[in-house]
Protein backbone atom coordinates (compact mmCIF):
# COMPACT_ATOMS: atom_id res chain seq x y z
CA UNK A 1 0.00 0.00 0.00
CA UNK A 2 2.76 2.44 0.98
CA UNK A 3 4.68 1.62 -2.17
CA UNK A 4 1.68 2.47 -4.35
CA UNK A 5 1.22 5.81 -2.58
CA UNK A 6 4.91 6.62 -3.05
CA UNK A 7 4.69 5.62 -6.73
CA UNK A 8 1.72 7.94 -7.27
CA UNK A 9 3.56 10.73 -5.43
CA UNK A 10 6.71 10.32 -7.53
CA UNK A 11 4.81 10.42 -10.82
CA UNK A 12 2.59 13.33 -9.67
CA UNK A 13 5.62 15.40 -8.62
CA UNK A 14 7.37 14.65 -11.93
CA UNK A 15 4.31 15.67 -13.97
CA UNK A 16 3.87 18.87 -11.93
CA UNK A 17 7.58 19.68 -12.37
CA UNK A 18 7.02 19.66 -16.13
CA UNK A 19 3.61 21.36 -16.11
CA UNK A 20 4.42 24.19 -13.65
CA UNK A 21 4.54 27.60 -15.34
CA UNK A 22 7.17 29.13 -13.04
CA UNK A 23 10.67 27.65 -13.10
CA UNK A 24 11.10 28.02 -9.33
CA UNK A 25 7.95 26.01 -8.65
CA UNK A 26 9.16 23.45 -11.16
CA UNK A 27 12.47 23.06 -9.28
CA UNK A 28 10.60 22.56 -6.00
CA UNK A 29 8.39 19.84 -7.51
CA UNK A 30 11.60 18.18 -8.77
CA UNK A 31 12.97 18.24 -5.22
CA UNK A 32 9.78 16.56 -3.97
CA UNK A 33 10.08 13.90 -6.65
CA UNK A 34 13.72 13.37 -5.67
CA UNK A 35 12.86 12.91 -1.99
CA UNK A 36 10.15 10.36 -2.83
CA UNK A 37 12.53 8.51 -5.19
CA UNK A 38 15.01 8.33 -2.30
CA UNK A 39 12.28 6.80 -0.11
CA UNK A 40 11.44 4.29 -2.83
CA UNK A 41 15.13 3.35 -3.24
CA UNK A 42 15.25 2.69 0.49
CA UNK A 43 12.24 0.38 0.19
CA UNK A 44 14.00 -1.44 -2.68
CA UNK A 45 16.94 -2.13 -0.35
CA UNK A 46 19.42 0.43 -1.70
CA UNK A 47 19.82 2.36 1.54
CA UNK A 48 23.22 3.99 0.81
CA UNK A 49 22.11 5.31 -2.57
CA UNK A 50 18.85 6.51 -1.03
CA UNK A 51 20.77 8.69 1.44
CA UNK A 52 23.02 10.09 -1.30
CA UNK A 53 20.05 10.75 -3.59
CA UNK A 54 18.23 12.54 -0.78
CA UNK A 55 21.18 14.80 0.03
CA UNK A 56 22.39 15.41 -3.54
CA UNK A 57 19.16 15.15 -5.57
CA UNK A 58 16.81 16.89 -3.18
CA UNK A 59 19.38 19.19 -1.56
CA UNK A 60 22.35 20.21 -3.70
CA UNK A 61 20.64 20.09 -7.12
CA UNK A 62 17.65 22.09 -5.84
CA UNK A 63 19.95 24.77 -4.45
CA UNK A 64 21.76 24.88 -7.80
CA UNK A 65 18.49 25.24 -9.70
CA UNK A 66 17.24 28.04 -7.42
CA UNK A 67 20.61 29.80 -7.78
CA UNK A 68 20.59 29.54 -11.58
CA UNK A 69 16.94 30.62 -11.87
CA UNK A 70 17.71 33.61 -9.63
CA UNK A 71 20.58 34.66 -11.90
CA UNK A 72 18.85 34.08 -15.23
CA UNK A 73 15.35 35.15 -14.12
CA UNK A 74 11.94 33.75 -14.92
CA UNK A 75 10.89 33.82 -18.54
CA UNK A 76 7.41 33.10 -19.85
CA UNK A 77 7.78 31.21 -23.11
CA UNK A 78 5.15 30.41 -25.69
CA UNK A 79 3.25 27.23 -24.92
CA UNK A 80 3.80 26.00 -28.46
CA UNK A 81 5.84 22.78 -28.15
CA UNK A 82 9.09 22.09 -29.99
CA UNK A 83 7.68 19.17 -31.96
CA UNK A 84 3.99 18.27 -32.53
CA UNK A 85 2.44 16.69 -29.43
CA UNK A 86 1.11 13.58 -31.26
CA UNK A 87 4.62 12.86 -32.55
CA UNK A 88 6.05 13.23 -29.03
CA UNK A 89 3.39 10.88 -27.62
CA UNK A 90 4.12 8.36 -30.39
CA UNK A 91 7.84 8.40 -29.54
CA UNK A 92 7.03 7.91 -25.83
CA UNK A 93 4.64 5.04 -26.58
CA UNK A 94 7.13 3.22 -28.83
CA UNK A 95 9.97 3.74 -26.31
CA UNK A 96 7.74 2.56 -23.43
CA UNK A 97 6.72 -0.56 -25.34
CA UNK A 98 10.32 -1.37 -26.22
CA UNK A 99 11.58 -0.85 -22.67
CA UNK A 100 8.67 -2.81 -21.20
CA UNK A 101 9.23 -5.63 -23.70
CA UNK A 102 12.90 -5.82 -22.76
CA UNK A 103 12.36 -5.39 -19.02
CA UNK A 104 9.33 -7.52 -18.16
CA UNK A 105 10.79 -10.99 -18.94
CA UNK A 106 13.65 -10.27 -16.50
CA UNK A 107 11.38 -9.39 -13.57
CA UNK A 108 10.18 -12.95 -12.96
CA UNK A 109 13.58 -14.63 -13.29
CA UNK A 110 14.79 -16.21 -10.05
CA UNK A 111 17.73 -14.35 -8.53
CA UNK A 112 21.09 -16.09 -9.01
CA UNK A 113 22.99 -16.94 -5.87
CA UNK A 114 26.04 -14.68 -5.72
CA UNK A 115 28.72 -14.23 -3.13
CA UNK A 116 27.71 -11.55 -0.64
CA UNK A 117 29.65 -8.30 -1.02
CA UNK A 118 29.29 -4.91 0.59
CA UNK A 119 29.26 -1.55 -1.13
CA UNK A 120 32.60 -0.42 0.32
CA UNK A 121 34.67 -3.31 -0.99
CA UNK A 122 32.89 -3.30 -4.37
CA UNK A 123 33.41 0.44 -4.81
CA UNK A 124 37.02 0.68 -3.64
CA UNK A 125 38.36 -2.63 -5.03
CA UNK A 126 36.31 -3.70 -8.05
CA UNK A 127 35.34 -0.27 -9.33
CA UNK A 128 38.23 1.94 -8.28
CA UNK A 129 38.36 3.53 -11.76
CA UNK A 130 34.80 4.78 -11.18
CA UNK A 131 35.90 6.46 -7.96
CA UNK A 132 38.77 8.18 -9.80
CA UNK A 133 36.39 9.35 -12.54
CA UNK A 134 33.95 10.65 -9.93
CA UNK A 135 36.73 12.73 -8.36
CA UNK A 136 37.60 14.15 -11.80
CA UNK A 137 33.93 14.91 -12.49
CA UNK A 138 33.49 16.69 -9.16
CA UNK A 139 36.58 18.78 -9.94
CA UNK A 140 35.08 19.65 -13.36
CA UNK A 141 31.80 20.64 -11.71
CA UNK A 142 33.62 22.88 -9.22
CA UNK A 143 35.48 24.54 -12.10
CA UNK A 144 32.18 25.09 -13.96
CA UNK A 145 30.69 26.80 -10.90
CA UNK A 146 33.82 28.95 -10.46
CA UNK A 147 33.71 30.00 -14.11
CA UNK A 148 30.05 30.93 -13.80
CA UNK A 149 30.63 33.07 -10.72
CA UNK A 150 33.78 34.73 -12.09
CA UNK A 151 32.02 35.80 -15.29
CA UNK A 152 29.22 37.33 -13.27
CA UNK A 153 31.66 39.46 -11.27
CA UNK A 154 33.51 40.58 -14.43
CA UNK A 155 30.23 41.65 -16.07
CA UNK A 156 29.34 43.69 -12.98
CA UNK A 157 32.72 45.45 -13.00
CA UNK A 158 32.38 46.32 -16.70
CA UNK A 159 28.95 47.85 -16.07
Amino acid at each position, binding site marked *: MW*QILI*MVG*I*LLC*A*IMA*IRAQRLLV*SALWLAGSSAL*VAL*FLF*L*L*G*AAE*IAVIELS*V*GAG*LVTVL*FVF*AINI*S*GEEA*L*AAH*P*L*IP*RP*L*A*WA*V*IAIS*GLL*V*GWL*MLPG*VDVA*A*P*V*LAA*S*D*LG*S*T*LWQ*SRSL*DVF*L*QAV*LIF*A*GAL*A*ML*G*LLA*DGKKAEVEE
Partner: protein
Amino acid sequence: MTISIPVIAGIVILGLVGIGLYALLAVRNLIKMIIALQIMVKGVLVAFALAGRLRSDMALAQSMALTIIVSDTIVAVIGLALAVQIRRHVGTLDIKALTTLRR
Protein backbone atom coordinates in the same frame (compact mmCIF):
# COMPACT_ATOMS: atom_id res chain seq x y z
CA MET B 1 -5.01 -7.69 -4.83
CA THR B 2 -1.42 -6.87 -3.98
CA ILE B 3 1.15 -5.61 -6.45
CA SER B 4 4.73 -6.70 -5.86
CA ILE B 5 7.51 -4.13 -5.43
CA PRO B 6 9.28 -5.04 -8.74
CA VAL B 7 6.08 -4.31 -10.67
CA ILE B 8 5.62 -0.99 -8.87
CA ALA B 9 9.28 -0.17 -9.56
CA GLY B 10 8.71 -1.02 -13.24
CA ILE B 11 5.78 1.41 -13.40
CA VAL B 12 7.91 4.11 -11.70
CA ILE B 13 10.76 3.52 -14.18
CA LEU B 14 8.51 3.66 -17.24
CA GLY B 15 6.63 6.67 -15.85
CA LEU B 16 9.71 8.74 -14.98
CA VAL B 17 11.55 7.93 -18.22
CA GLY B 18 8.38 8.61 -20.25
CA ILE B 19 7.65 11.94 -18.55
CA GLY B 20 11.28 13.03 -18.91
CA LEU B 21 11.47 12.00 -22.57
CA TYR B 22 8.21 13.79 -23.39
CA ALA B 23 9.44 16.97 -21.71
CA LEU B 24 12.78 16.77 -23.54
CA LEU B 25 10.91 16.56 -26.84
CA ALA B 26 8.22 19.16 -26.15
CA VAL B 27 9.64 21.79 -23.78
CA ARG B 28 11.39 24.90 -25.15
CA ASN B 29 12.90 26.33 -21.96
CA LEU B 30 16.55 25.34 -21.44
CA ILE B 31 16.33 25.09 -17.65
CA LYS B 32 13.17 23.00 -17.91
CA MET B 33 15.01 20.66 -20.28
CA ILE B 34 17.65 20.10 -17.57
CA ILE B 35 14.81 19.36 -15.12
CA ALA B 36 13.45 16.81 -17.63
CA LEU B 37 16.89 15.20 -17.85
CA GLN B 38 17.00 14.95 -14.05
CA ILE B 39 13.61 13.22 -14.03
CA MET B 40 14.81 10.68 -16.62
CA VAL B 41 17.95 9.93 -14.60
CA LYS B 42 15.83 9.30 -11.49
CA GLY B 43 14.03 6.60 -13.46
CA VAL B 44 17.37 5.08 -14.42
CA LEU B 45 18.46 5.09 -10.75
CA VAL B 46 15.36 3.13 -9.77
CA ALA B 47 16.07 0.74 -12.66
CA PHE B 48 19.59 0.07 -11.33
CA ALA B 49 18.26 -0.55 -7.81
CA LEU B 50 15.62 -2.93 -9.20
CA ALA B 51 18.24 -4.78 -11.26
CA GLY B 52 20.45 -5.12 -8.17
CA ARG B 53 17.54 -6.47 -6.15
CA LEU B 54 16.54 -8.97 -8.84
CA ARG B 55 20.13 -10.21 -9.30
CA SER B 56 20.87 -10.19 -5.55
CA ASP B 57 23.90 -7.98 -6.24
CA MET B 58 22.92 -4.72 -4.62
CA ALA B 59 26.55 -3.66 -4.00
CA LEU B 60 27.40 -3.55 -7.71
CA ALA B 61 24.12 -1.82 -8.57
CA GLN B 62 24.66 0.79 -5.85
CA SER B 63 28.26 1.49 -6.90
CA MET B 64 27.08 2.10 -10.49
CA ALA B 65 24.14 4.20 -9.27
CA LEU B 66 26.60 6.33 -7.27
CA THR B 67 28.55 7.07 -10.47
CA ILE B 68 25.28 8.00 -12.18
CA ILE B 69 24.30 10.39 -9.38
CA VAL B 70 27.69 12.15 -9.50
CA SER B 71 27.78 12.45 -13.31
CA ASP B 72 24.14 13.58 -13.41
CA THR B 73 24.83 16.32 -10.87
CA ILE B 74 27.82 17.54 -12.87
CA VAL B 75 25.72 17.51 -16.06
CA ALA B 76 23.14 19.64 -14.24
CA VAL B 77 25.83 22.09 -13.02
CA ILE B 78 27.41 22.50 -16.46
CA GLY B 79 23.99 22.68 -18.16
CA LEU B 80 22.79 25.38 -15.76
CA ALA B 81 26.04 27.33 -16.22
CA LEU B 82 25.58 27.16 -20.00
CA ALA B 83 21.92 28.22 -19.66
CA VAL B 84 22.87 31.24 -17.55
CA GLN B 85 25.58 32.24 -20.05
CA ILE B 86 23.14 31.86 -22.96
CA ARG B 87 20.60 34.00 -21.12
CA ARG B 88 23.27 36.68 -20.58
CA HIS B 89 24.50 36.73 -24.17
CA VAL B 90 21.38 35.92 -26.21
CA GLY B 91 18.77 37.28 -23.80
CA THR B 92 16.44 34.30 -23.85
CA LEU B 93 16.19 30.70 -22.69
CA ASP B 94 14.05 29.66 -25.67
CA ILE B 95 15.97 27.02 -27.62
CA LYS B 96 14.13 28.01 -30.81
CA ALA B 97 15.86 31.38 -30.58
CA LEU B 98 19.34 29.82 -30.55
CA THR B 99 19.83 29.92 -34.31
CA THR B 100 23.15 31.75 -34.52
CA LEU B 101 24.94 28.76 -36.05
CA ARG B 102 22.28 28.27 -38.73
CA ARG B 103 23.44 31.25 -40.83
